[in-house]
C-alpha cells in the first residue's frame, strides 16, 4: 500500500466556466434571446410543420420534459399564425326539414356573429309584431267574421232540422249519450205505452218519420267535422296571410344585408316559411307573457326555449378583441368531448332530449384553420380521443361522436350534425418512448404525423454556446421578471448545466431545471435586498435544493454513521469492497456506498449472484455477474476445469439492485477472495467490466463519488481514501466544490482505471501481474495467487473424484 496512486488533479474534477468570457457585468446590459440553443434540428421540423401546406404534415415533438418543447412550439406557431388569415366562423343552424341533422355553415370571419345578432333581433321583433298583429282590430274583425260564418252555417243546418222535427211533431231529446227523437202529442213526449195504443197506421207513420229524421240528424252531425276542418283551414290561411306581411318585411331587410352569402339567403328563406307555419309559437309566448309577472316588459324573446329553433349556434368565431391571424389552441384535457366537440342533453320529464343548440365545439373546431397543440400522453390516455383525432385528420372533417355512441349504448334522441371540413396542423408533444411506440404499434401514425421534431438533451460546450446560453438566461430573467443576473451567476448556472448533462463537454438543455434554479436564486437575492442575482444565490439555491431532497440520504448516512449499515472506510478486508450505487427518488439522486462481499470454495464453476437468486437483482446486474464470471474462467487456469463455487452479495441490500456498474467491484471482491489478498476499504469502486477485463463507463459517477466522499468526510478524511472510476468517465466529472477542494488538499482521490489489473493493484497494493514467457503470472502477484487457488480447487476436485479417496 505504500505506492500511493495520486489520481486526478482537482481541475479535472469539475468544468469551470470563466465569467470573464462574458462581456457584461449583469444581464441587464445585454440584448436578450428568447430562442433555444442547440435545438436547430427540432426547430426546423416544427417550422416546416407550421408552414407547409400539404396535408398530414403534423408533427410529433419528442424529447424529455424541461427542454422547452412547449414554449418553443408556441413561439414558433405564434410567429407563423400571425401571418395567416383569420379562419371562417363555424355555425350550426336548424335543419327545418330534418331537425336531427343540423346544418353546418362556414362563413367568412365575423359573419357568423352578425348572423346570430341578426336572428336574435329578428325573433325579438317578430315576437312583438306578430302578437300585436293578431291583437289588431284588423285581424280580429276578419277572424270574427270567419268564425261567425262557419258557426252559423252549422247552426242553420241544426235549426232547419229542429224546424222540420217540430213540423212533424217530433221532439229532439238530449240524453247523456247523445240524441233521441220522440213523437209529441199535445206538447208532451209520447210514452211507449201510449204509443202502443195508437192505431198501427199512425205508429208506422211515426216510425217512418223518426227513422228518416234520425238519418238526417246523423248526417248533420257527421258533416260538422268537415265544416270544422274547412273552418280551420280558412283560419290558417288568414293567419298565414297576416303573418306573411310582418315576416316578409322583417326578413327582407335581413336578406338584403346578407345578399353576398347564398347559404344565409337559403337559410333565411327557410326561416321565413317556418315562422309562418309556426306562428302559434309567437302567440303562445305572447299569451304567457300577458299572464306573467312582467307583462309588457321589453324582453329578449330569442332566449326563450320555444324559439330555440331559430337560434344560430355560433360554434367558433373570432371576437373583435381577439388577436389577428390563425388560432393556436392548446387543449390541456384532450378528452373525446373536448377534442371533437359534444352534443349535450337535457333531462325533460325523465327523457334526455337535445337539439342543435346543444352542440358544443371541441378543440378541433376552435383550432380549425390554425394549430392544435396536444400532449401526446394525455391524448393517448383519454378513451376514444386518439381514435377520434386520427379519424378527423384522415377524413379532414370534424365528426362529433360520443363514447356512448361508440359503445352502442345510446338509447335516446341524438343528432347527426353535418361535419365541418377540417384544416388544422396538429402538434403532439411527448417523449421519445411514446413516439417509438406509436411508430411501431400504430400503422396510421406515421401517415398522419409525417414530421418528428426531436429535442436534444445536451449541446456541446463551447465559447459560442456559453455566450448563447448567457443570452438565453438573460431573456429568461426578463421574461420572468427576475432581477438581472451577474456574469458570475450565469457562469455558475452553466456549471450546473454541465453537471445536469453529466458530461464536462456538454451543457444540459433541460431549461426547466435551470429556470427553477434561477427562480429560487432570484428569491434569495431579493430576500437579501440585492439588485442582482449573484453566484452565491445560485449556490444557495443548489444547496437548499439538495437539502430539501436529502431526507432519505441523511437517514441512510445516519445508519452508516451508527454502524447499522456497515461500511468500512479504512483498514483492509479479504473479499470485501465498497461498491457505489445511485439511489433515485423522483427528481432526487444521490450516491450510496454498499458493502459487497465474495466467498469462494471448491465447486463446479458456479459464481452465484445472491441478488439474482432471491430476485433482488435486475437483469443488467445478472448480466454483469455473468460477464465477470466469463472473465474469470477465461483469464485463469484455462487448462483445468473451473472448480470454483463463489457467491457474491450486496450486503444489507433489501430493496433490489440493477445495472452493471458494480460488476468490476464484484470482480475485485472475487479476486481478493480467491487470492486471499485484502482490499483497502478506504477506496470505493464503480465501473462495469467486460470479458476482457476492461473497465467501462457507468452513469451517475458524480453522485457516486460524492456519496462515498461524504461518508469519509464525516468520519475524517485520511488522504488515502478515494474512488476508482472508469477512465472513460473522467470527462463526465462535475463534482461539487467540497470534493474538489478535498482533492485539491490531497485528502481524497479520484482514480481512473482502464483495466481490472490496474484496479486490483491499487486496491490490494500488490501488482496484478501479467503472464510471462512461460505463461505464468509473476510469483506473488494477485493474478498468480488467483490462478493458484483455482488450480488448487481443480486438483482437489479431481482428487476428490478418484476411487479410494472417498474416505
Amino acid at each position: 500500500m505504500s505506492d500511493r496512486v495520486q489520481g486526478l488533479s482537482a481541475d479535472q474534477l469539475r468544468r469551470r466556466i470563466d465569467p470573464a468570457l462574458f462581456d457584461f457585468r449583469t444581464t441587464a446590459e445585454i440584448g436578450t434571446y428568447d430562442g433555444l440553443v442547440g435545438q436547430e434540428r427540432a426547430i426546423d421540423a416544427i417550422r416546416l410543420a407550421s408552414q407547409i401546406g400539404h396535408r398530414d404534415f403534423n408533427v410529433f415533438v419528442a424529447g424529455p420534459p424541461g427542454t422547452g418543447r412547449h414554449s418553443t412550439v408556441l413561439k414558433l406557431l405564434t410567429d407563423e399564425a400571425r401571418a395567416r388569415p383569420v379562419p371562417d366562423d363555424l355555425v350550426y343552424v336548424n335543419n327545418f326539414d330534418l331537425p336531427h341533422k343540423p346544418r353546418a355553415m362556414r362563413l367568412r370571419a365575423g359573419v357568423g356573429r352578425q348572423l346570430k345578432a341578426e336572428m336574435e333581433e329578428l325573433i325579438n321583433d317578430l315576437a312583438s309584431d306578430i302578437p300585436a298583429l293578431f291583437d289588431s282590430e284588423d285581424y280580429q274583425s276578419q277572424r270574427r267574421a270567419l268564425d261567425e260564418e262557419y258557426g252559423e252555417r252549422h247552426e242553420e243546418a241544426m235549426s232547419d232540422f229542429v224546424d222540420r222535427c217540430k213540423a212533424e211533431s217530433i221532439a229532439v231529446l238530449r240524453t247523456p249519450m247523445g240524441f233521441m227523437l220522440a213523437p209529441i202529442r199535445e206538447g208532451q213526449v209520447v210514452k211507449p205505452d201510449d204509443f202502443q195504443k195508437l192505431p198501427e197506421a199512425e205508429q208506422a207513420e211515426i216510425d217512418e218519420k223518426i227513422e228518416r229524421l234520425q238519418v238526417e240528424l246523423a248526417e248533420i252531425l257527421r258533416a260538422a267535422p268537415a265544416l270544422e276542418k274547412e273552418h280551420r283551414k280558412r283560419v290558417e290561411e288568414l293567419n298565414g296571410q297576416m303573418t306573411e306581411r310582418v315576416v316578409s318585411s322583417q326578413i327582407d331587410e335581413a336578406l338584403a344585408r346578407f345578399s353576398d352569402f347564398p347559404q344565409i339567403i337559403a337559410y333565411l328563406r327557410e326561416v321565413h316559411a317556418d315562422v309562418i307555419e309556426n306562428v302559434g309559437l309567437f302567440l303562445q309566448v305572447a299569451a304567457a307573457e300577458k299572464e306573467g309577472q312582467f307583462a309588457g316588459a321589453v324582453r329578449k324573446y330569442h332566449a326563450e326555449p320555444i324559439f330555440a329553433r331559430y337560434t344560430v349556434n355560433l360554434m367558433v368565431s373570432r371576437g373583435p378583441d381577439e388577436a389577428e391571424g390563425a388560432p393556436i389552441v392548446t387543449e390541456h384535457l384532450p378528452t373525446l368531448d373536448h377534442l371533437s366537440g359534444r352534443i349535450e342533453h337535457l333531462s325533460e320529464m325523465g327523457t334526455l332530449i337535445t337539439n342543435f343548440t346543444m352542440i358544443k365545439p371541441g378543440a378541433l373546431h376552435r383550432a380549425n384553420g390554425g394549430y392544435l397543440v396536444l400532449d401526446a400522453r394525455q391524448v393517448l390516455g383519454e378513451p376514444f380521443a386518439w381514435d377520434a383525432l386520427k379519424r378527423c385528420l384522415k377524413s379532414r372533417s370534424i365528426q362529433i361522436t360520443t363514447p356512448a355512441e361508440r359503445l352502442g349504448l345510446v338509447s335516446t334522441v341524438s343528432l347527426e350534425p353535418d361535419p365541418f371540413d377540417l384544416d388544422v396542423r396538429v402538434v403532439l408533444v411527448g417523449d421519445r418512448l411514446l413516439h417509438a411506440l406509436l411508430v411501431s404499434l400504430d400503422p396510421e401514425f406515421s401517415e398522419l404525423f409525417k414530421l418528428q421534431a426531436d429535442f436534444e438533451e445536451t449541446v456541446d460546450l463551447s465559447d459560442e454556446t456559453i455566450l448563447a446560453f448567457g443570452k438565453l438566461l438573460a431573456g429568461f430573467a426578463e421574461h420572468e421578471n427576475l432581477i438581472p443576473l451577474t456574469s458570475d451567476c450565469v457562469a455558475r448556472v452553466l456549471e450546473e448545466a454541465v453537471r445536469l448533462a453529466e458530461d464536462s463537454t456538454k451543457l444540459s438543455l433541460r431549461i426547466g431545471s435551470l429556470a427553477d434554479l434561477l427562480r429560487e436564486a432570484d428569491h434569495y437575492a431579493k430576500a437579501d435586498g440585492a439588485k442582482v442575482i449573484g453566484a452565491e444565490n445560485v449556490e444557495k439555491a443548489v444547496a437548499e435544493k439538495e437539502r430539501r431532497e436529502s431526507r432519505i440520504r441523511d437517514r441512510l448516512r445516519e445508519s452508516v454513521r451508527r454502524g447499522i449499515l456497515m461500511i468500512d472506510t479504512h483498514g483492509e478486508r479479504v473479499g470485501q469492497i465498497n461498491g457505489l450505487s445511485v439511489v433515485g427518488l423522483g427528481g432526487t439522486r444521490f450516491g450510496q456506498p454498499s458493502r459487497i462481499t465474495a466467498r469462494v470454495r471448491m465447486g463446479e464453476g458456479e459464481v452465484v449472484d445472491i441478488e439474482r437468486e432471491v430476485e433482488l437483482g435486475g437483469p443488467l446486474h445478472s448480466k454483469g455477474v455473468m460477464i465477470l464470471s466469463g472473465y474469470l474462467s477465461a483469464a485463469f487456469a484455462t487448462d483445468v476445469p473451473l472448480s470454483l463455487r463463489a457467491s457474491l452479495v450486496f450486503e444489507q441490500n433489501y430493496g433490489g439492485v440493477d445495472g452493471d456498474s458494480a460488476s468490476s467491484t464484484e470482480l475485485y471482491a472475487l479476486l481478493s477472495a480467491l487470492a486471499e489478498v485484502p482490499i483497502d476499504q478506504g477506496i470505493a469502486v464503480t465501473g462495469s467490466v467486460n470479458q476482457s477485463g476492461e473497465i467501462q463507463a457507468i452513469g451517475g459517477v458524480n453522485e457516486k463519488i460524492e456519496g462515498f466522499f461524504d461518508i469519509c468526510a464525516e468520519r475524517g478524511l485520511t488522504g488515502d481514501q478515494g474512488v476508482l472510476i472508469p477512465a472513460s468517465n473522467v470527462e463526465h466529472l462535475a463534482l461539487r466544490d467540497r470534493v474538489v477542494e478535498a482533492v485539491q488538499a490531497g485528502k481524497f482521490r479520484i482514480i481512473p482505471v482502464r483495466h481490472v489489473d490496474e484496479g486490483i493493484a491499487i486496491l490490494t497494493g500488490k501488482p496484478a501481474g501479467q503472464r510471462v514467457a512461460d505463461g505464468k503470472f509473476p510469483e506473488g502477484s494477485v493474478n498468480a495467487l488467483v490462478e493458484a487457488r483455482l488450480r488448487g480447487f481443480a486438483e482437489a476436485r479431481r482428487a476428490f473424484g478418484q476411487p479410494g479417496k472417498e474416505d
Partner: protein
Amino acid sequence: MAAEAKIRRRILVGAGCFADARPAMGLAERLGGEICGLMVADLAVIEASGLPAQRLITAKGDLLEPPSPERQKRQIAADARAFRAELVRLAELSGQTADFQQATGDLVASVISDARQWDVVVIGHRRLRGHSGRVVVLTSPSETTSEAVGLAEELASALGISGMHLEVSANGIEAVFREVARRDIAALVLPIELATSLGSGTLMRLLEASRAPLVLVGPEEINRPEGG
C-alpha cells in the same frame, strides 16, 4: 293595493246530464263565485228509449241501438258523480265548499221555481261545435236589464268573443226563437225577471232553439260585495 270590493256571486248550475253541465260550469267558473249544482234527470227521456224505431244518435253522427232504461239510469248516476266532482274541484280552487243536489223531472221548471234565490242561474246545454260563437243578451223593454247586459259584456270579454243584443219586441217571442236558432251562440243571457215571466215552457224552447247555456241574471247580482 287598495281593497276593491269583489263580486261574490251565488251561482246555480242546472243541467240534465254532465254533457250539458260542463259548458255551463265553464261559464260559471269564468264569472266566479260560489257555485252550486243541480242535476235534474228527465224521466221522459228514459222512457223514450222504449219506442220501437228509437235509435241513439251520437254527437259524431253514429246511429246506435238505444240504451236500456237500466243503462240510462247507471249513466245518469255516473253523470251525477262527475257533476259533483267538477263542482268540488271548482269549489276547492276558490276555497269554498260544494253544494250539489239531484232530482228528476223538468229541469227548467225546477230551476225557474226558485231562481230568484240566486244571483245567477246557468241552465246547461251541450255545445255541438268547438267554435266560440257569441254572447247574446235577451231583454224586455219593460224591465230593468242593466245587470244582464253588464254580465253579458263581462262574459263576452272573458271568452274573447263578441256580444249581441236581442229584445223581446212587439212581434213576440217567436221572432226571438227564429233569431237565436240561426245564430252560433256561446251563451244566452237574460234577466231572471224576464225568464220567470216567460215561463218554463218558453224558456225550454229558448234553450232548445239557442242550443247554448241560458244565463239568468238576478237584479242585484253585480252589487253584492265579496263576503257580503
